[in-house]
């Protein structure tokens, strides 16, 4: 076995997303926290789909479940469901304009959050509140920056 190029930077990017996900914020900003882990996964799945696949998604989903304190599998299922369309259409997505891509990412984050809500509702009687969907907006605003930053990061550290 040999270690593929840029393994450590790749793992560090996962770590950064997980830390950002649980970083304490003032309660005003808390509801607007972008969905970092989804954004990061969408980027890697689109950029290096031969390397980041469902196994990575399962692992990160499990870690998200633990960090969020939800039941096992809730975030995992939602992330797997989001990963499928990205992996299916990654070649098409790479050629989309930034605006189209942003709208697509917004829809994916919306889908992810609705799946999480539905599962929580069925399993734990969660009640829907609108602020739960605010991160869809901030995720869309953050996406172009995440995209450009990660592309630079990928090129600098030769993650392929």
């Amino acid at each position, binding site marked *: 076995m040999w270690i593929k190029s840029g393994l450590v930077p790749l793992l560090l990017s996962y770590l950064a997303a997980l830390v950002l996900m649980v970083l304490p914020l003032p309660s005003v900003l808390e509801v607007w926290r972008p969905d970092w882990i989804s954004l990061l996964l969408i980027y890697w799945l689109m950029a290096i789909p031969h390397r980041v696949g469902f196994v990575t998604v399962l692992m990160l989903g499990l870690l998200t479940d*633990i960090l969020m304190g939800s039941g096992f599998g809730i975030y995992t*299922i939602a992330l797997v469901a989001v990963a499928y369309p990205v992996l*299916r259409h990654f070649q098409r997505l790479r050629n989309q304009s930034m605006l189209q891509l942003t709208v697509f990412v917004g829809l994916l984050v919306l889908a992810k959050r609705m799946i999480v809500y539905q599962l929580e509702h069925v*399993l734990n009687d*969660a009640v829907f509140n609108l602020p739960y969907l605010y991160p869809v907006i901030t995720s869309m605003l953050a996406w172009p920056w995440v995209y450009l930053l990660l592309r630079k990061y990928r090129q600098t550290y030769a993650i392929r």
Partner: protein
Amino acid sequence: MKSLFERGPSLRTRFFIALGCASLLLFLDHRLNTMQPVRSFLSTVVSPIQYLAVLPQQISARIDYSLTTRSEVRKDNERLGNPLLELEMAAQRLNFIESENDRLRQLLGSDVRGASRRMVTEVVAVASDPFSHQVVINKGSSNGAYVGQPVLDNRGIVGQLVSVGLNTARVLLISDQSHAISLRVQRNDIRVLAQGTGDLQKLALLYISHSSDIEVGDVLLSSGLDEVFPEGYPVAEVIEIDRNEQFQYAQVAVRPYAQLDRVRSLLLLWPGHVDEQPVFGRANDDAAQRPEVNYVD
């Protein structure tokens, strides 16, 4: 790059396999409750992430502290000195009354209440899942914490531990929708159940008949009947009663005393009747942990 001609199972097959794995996890955890050991192991694994997340906050607090001036510290000292004196005097009186209470209980032939022990703990992360109210604290099984342990702050009961890792544990707040606590009204000892509503400032009392004697402003204490929370700690105050007869039960809203939205330091409590014992760290741990002090529950 070998994305045109893929090897192995097709994307759809892999998708369904991944979905199957995730659903299996969900099933094992939610229906069979077999994942508790895995959960405590994994929460130990992810605890560095949680510590990393609070690192900036801790550094800024440290810098803040080192920048406080001498006069501010002196002012603080003065401000805190007087209440401390008063509390110490109250504690002397309390010790006397408690020993008297124990003697009287012995005379009556009822059980003497066991001593409970406490440990100060800090919140290291707040679970940002908006559907569950949980916080993560920096004490775990290495400190003797156990699942189902009551957690308090300086005003009242905060919640209980739901999963325990080696150095972190997860507290389910009383305001979580899946949490209920057995209480009694201080004024007349009516037993009530308070369930979380998902709102940090509000719990709802269940199964209150329209004729029951509960008034706005009543103080609710823990009843000890749930065998999780010790008896007699303040929990909530009644803020609103709706005796609309078209509902089967009166709608009673209560507000928790504990400031669930701004928890920072919490107390872990080991009630007298449990077998687990707190394990205090070395002297460089929190100064507030005084193993030699044995509070009486």
